[in-house]
């Protein structure tokens, strides 16, 4: 959690100037909803204009009504005022609703476009971009862009119209005084923008400090056993207090800068007010400067402060929002590395010969993971891939699934280069079970049905039975309707594995791929998983990244992979006789499994029973 937050914070630091192409694309986002945009721009502009009209009406009330002691005039102006009040209320309703809903809509559009595009991007993109970054793209970046285009645009429009309409009315009343007031605006703006930027920096600092505090809480609670065992409480508090100190400094500074901001702007305005009083007062002796005029000027002046404030805020935030927009566009412009060729055809079956022909692969340049890899697999054959971590086993699986494509060499299915097939036709025929099984929030049933969406409840249960998962599922309080929690967290690893097996069974794949779990599950679950796998592999070509002896022994062929190359291959017996890599791996695993098995046995049969 706090890691994602740190990524977000780091990215928020970026600013970009507005360039023409970016501007065009940002505007392009609004095109489908231009009516809404025109609507809120008109309503906010009218609202801002009316604000200065109210002041003008007040001036009328004073000069025509009170000044001439005319109740008629008073009533007339009051009627205008009341009528316009109702009009303005309708306008306020309009701009809040229009801008707000438009903002939500633009965010919705952007998120949909990003998410859909992410679905099409290749695994290579995912391996280069941390999930936290992609999350930030879809969640916070879209928020910043949509609010710039709605609330930001709204604030700017409001501010500009307010300033202009106030200025016009002031010019009408007294142009000399109007110029005095107007001259204060640039000063106000410069002060406000600088303040805003400083405040923004402090706020970011506070958020950064805050996410560090959360991280520290998290660590200390999770490692509380260690803390207690080592008696490190006092030192921890000292260190933590330094973090809260940073937080205090940043947020205190942000707060008092904010507190200083408005008074500063107001004092500048007060000088303008002083000028009005002095100049306007002297003028009233010689010309006709009325009480209504004074009132109007004072109101217009105070009126200037808020728009200037808003302009400064939007300006300070705008550059960050543009950086967000550019990141979004960059993602949308990324073309998927693995995609259908224009002349791709649907594969009819994957149950044919599969051949890796002198395949090279690297994730990053100059760092080969697989070198000159060749392997021919007959339909229905079961291949066990064994070898140390990082040797290249997962890469073989990734290539086979066409998550990646070979950098050199060819992979053929049924004698044809598999890049000539459509991705959909390959993927829909593959069943995959990963080492760390991934489930989605929802029920057990929904997770199994992921394998074949159209499957009936009966088929789901049948698949679960085949995979050996039915028993434990029916033992859950709500059975198949039990919620698995976020990422399946409410289930044990073994249970998650059984469900992902059932999911693969339901998919009725022609090619089955499994990355066996290394983490130990209890013996009963283990037996169930073995049983499920056996059922799945029947009549299918299968590749298993194998760790367990029972799996390895069952394989038609064992391929030992180390340093991106095939070191040995053959049947269990052949390889044992060679007394090479496989022999070492096997004896090691044998001892391990036997120990686990026997210590479990020893547990089950207490001495007294002997």
């Amino acid at each position, binding site marked *: 959690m706090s*890691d994602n937050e740190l990524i977000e914070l780091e990215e928020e630091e970026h600013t970009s100037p507005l360039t023409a192409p970016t501007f065009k694309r940002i505007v392009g986002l609004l095109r489908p909803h231009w009516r809404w945009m025109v609507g809120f721009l008109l309503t906010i502009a009218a609202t801002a204009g009316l604000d200065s009209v109210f002041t003008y009406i007040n001036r009328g009330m004073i000069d025509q009504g009170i000044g001439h002691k005319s109740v008629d005039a008073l009533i007339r102006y009051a009627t205008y005022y009341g009528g316009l*009040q109702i009009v303005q209320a309708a306008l306020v309703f309009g701009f809040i609703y229009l801008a707000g809903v438009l903002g939500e809509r633009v965010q919705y559009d952007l998120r949909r476009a990003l998410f859909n595009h992410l679905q099409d991007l290749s695994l290579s993109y995912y391996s280069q971009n941390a999930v936290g970054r992609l999350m930030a793209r879809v969640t916070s970046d879209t928020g910043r862009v949509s609010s710039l285009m709605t609330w930001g645009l709204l604030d700017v429009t409001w501010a500009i119209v307010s300033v202009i309409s106030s200025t016009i009315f002031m010019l009408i009343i007294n142009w000399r005084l109007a110029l005095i007031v107007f001259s204060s605006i640039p000063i106000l703006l410069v002060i406000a923008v600088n303040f805003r930027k400083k405040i923004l920096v402090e706020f970011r600092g506070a958020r950064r400090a805050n996410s560090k505090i959360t991280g520290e809480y998290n660590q200390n609670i999770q490692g509380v056993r260690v803390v207690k065992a080592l008696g490190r409480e*006092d030192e921890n508090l000292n260190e933590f207090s330094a973090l809260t100190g940073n937080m205090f400094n940043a947020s205190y500074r942000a707060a008092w800068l904010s507190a200083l901001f408005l008074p500063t702007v*107001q004092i500048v305005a007060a000088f303008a007010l002083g000028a009005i*009083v002095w100049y306007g007062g002297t003028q009233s002796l010689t010309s006709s400067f009325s*009480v209504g005029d004074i009132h109007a000027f004072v109101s217009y002046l105070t009126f200037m402060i808020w728009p200037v404030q808003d302009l400064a805020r939007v300006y300070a935030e705008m550059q960050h929002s543009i950086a967000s927009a550019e990141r979004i566009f960059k993602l949308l412009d990324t073309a998927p590395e693995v995609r259908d060729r224009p002349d791709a055809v649907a594969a009819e079956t994957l149950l044919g010969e599969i051949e890796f022909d002198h395949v090279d692969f690297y994730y990053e340049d100059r760092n080969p993971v697989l070198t000159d890899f060749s392997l021919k697999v007959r339909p229905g054959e079961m291949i066990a891939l064994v070898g140390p971590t990082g040797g290249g086993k997962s890469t073989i699986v990734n290539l086979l699934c066409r998550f990646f494509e070979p950098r050199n060499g060819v992979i053929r299915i049924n004698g044809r280069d598999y890049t000539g097939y459509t991705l959909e036709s390959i993927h829909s025929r593959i069943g995959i079970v990963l080492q760390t099984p991934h489930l989605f929030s929802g029920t057990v049933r929904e997770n199994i049905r992921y394998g074949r969406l159209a499957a009936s409840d009966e088929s789901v249960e049948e698949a679960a039975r085949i995979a050996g998962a039915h028993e434990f599922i029916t033992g859950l309080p709500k059975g198949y309707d039990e919620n698995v929690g976020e990422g399946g967290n409410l289930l044990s690893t073994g249970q998650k594995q059984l469900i992902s097996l059932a999911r693969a069974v339901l998919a009725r794949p022609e090619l089955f791929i499994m990355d066996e779990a290394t983490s130990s599950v209890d013996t009963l679950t283990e037996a169930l998983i073995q049983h499920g796998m056996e059922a799945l592999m029947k009549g299918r070509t299968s590749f298993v990244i194998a760790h367990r002896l029972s799996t390895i022994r069952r394989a038609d062929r064992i391929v030992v992979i180390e340093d991106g190359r095939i070191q040995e291959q053959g049947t269990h017996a052949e390889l044992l006789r060679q007394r090479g890599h496989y022999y070492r791996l096997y004896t090691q695993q044998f001892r391990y499994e036997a*120990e686990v098995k026997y210590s479990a046995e020893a547990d089950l049969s207490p*001495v007294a029973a002997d």
Partner: protein
Amino acid sequence: MATVSPTIPYFDFRKAQTPKKLVGLWRMLEGYRLPYLLANLSVGVSALAKATTYILLWIFADTVTGNFTPFAGTLSKTLIYLAFGFVGLSMVEGLFAFISGRLAAYSAEGITRRLRNFLFDHIQRLSFAYHSKTPTGDLIERVTSDVDAIRSFFNEQAIGVGRIILLFVVNFTAIWFINHKLALASIIVIPVVLLVSLWFFKRITKAYEAYQEQEAKLSTTLQENLTGVRVVKAFARQGFEKGKFETDNWEKFRRGRKLLGMHSLFWPLSDIVCGFQMLGGFVYAAILAINGEITIGTYPAYVGLVVWLIWPMRNLGRLIVNTSTGLVSYNRLMEIIKQEREPLTEGRVRPEGPVRGELAFEKVSFTYEDGESEVVKDISFRVQPGQAVALLGSTGSGKTSLIKLLPRFHDYTDGRILLDGEELKDYPREVLRKQIGTVEQEPFLFSRSIRDNITYGVGRDVAQEEIEKAAKAAAVHEVILGFPDGYNTLVGEKGVTLSGGQKQRVAIARTLLKNPRILILDDSTSSVDTETEAEIRSALNTLMENRTTFIIAHRIQSVMNADLILVLDKGEVVQMGRHEALLAQDGMYRKIYEIQTRIDDELEEEIQNYEL
């Protein structure tokens, strides 16, 4: 031994415990009451200055229209006074607004810092029993969002409500000063505004929560999709995923629209109510002016004042609704604060130097606080300083529970344990824990540098050479040098991921530096990483030298050389003695031993089969 720095802002929030929430919040203010009250007072001064500005405007307007001559002398002189008056008042207003903001932030942030420090410390000092039953996520939620709610209670809501009330009092008084009837006529709708805003904000808050909830759901869907990208692709479920995201995304849009709908109703509605109130006031004031009951110059002053009387009221409802959040958070935090801490320093026996490490268990039994049956039953044995004791048994046999009694993570419920002849319960926990080192099979490492993890809890400054010496002895020095930043490499998500064996050796190095007299080695699950096993074993042997050692194990190899082996089953010692003696007995020990030798025979046999 490290101590808490005296300069750390710290306050014992247990003192603030009371069923009356507002009283409790007042108590939390201790030490900040003066600045906080001054902050509120400054708001008042600032409001007063603003109101006075309008009074000055009144004088000005009446002066220029010749209704009033306050100062003797020429008019232009009066105007200069007035001009300076405006600037001066504005400065006073601004200065006090600033002082108020600064003091409020100082108090609120200060209280929050103390609260954070206290909670951090309090949580790490709560008992094991509390930690084992409380999910981390729940605690984190409370110490972050609930603390933040308290912060905004002091920084925004309490001061905001105070500000609105003061604005009301000052401006009302000023208008009252102008004309009593006018003042009364100006506040007719205030109760209405208040009620309407309360009504709306209760609903708006609810709608906002629903909106946020959907945002969280959307973000879960997104995260699951991104982390499960291989599954999505392997099953060619892109279309399905798009549909799922679309549903959540649309629902969020819908909830956002609903929330905005409420906002777009509330603001214009309250605009109309407030607007007509003001208009009524304007007309009434104008009529009073026409009738000569007030001067013409009073009118613009009134218009300026009444704005500050009415508009802030719209926000009062929002603040009151938000205040209730602060009160709920107070309760949620108090649930943590009221928990009893583990007393670390309580105890009579404080040996000058290190203990010798002689231990005697006499009929020790232990039941968990919320447990029903004894997990450790009537165990007695003795250990001489420097000896090694091995505990052998299956999961649930009680060996881990027995060991947890030594550092007093839990206290035995029956019998007694003597350390150097003194009962364990008479030693303060902190003393015991300094004397006992634990190395788990897969220890928890912190997201810090490897160096920090090695020196973690050692409690003194350690030179780099000493760290490296310990790392070498723990057979982890070479591994560390292989990492990109050596000893400065970060551990965890943002740095390197260490294997179980590597983590264990880091913990061994740490324990070597700590140099405890009593050692606990948890070797209860067997490691797959056989290549490093020999290295770990020799590192462990170095560590065990001259220390009283307890080994938790389930394999014969790890216990064979112990001075005393206890075989446990269901909380009881079923066999006790040295390896040779136990082997001679017909019992569980021999059975486990036989199994291990059988494995070698079987392997040989299997390979022979294929060799034929």
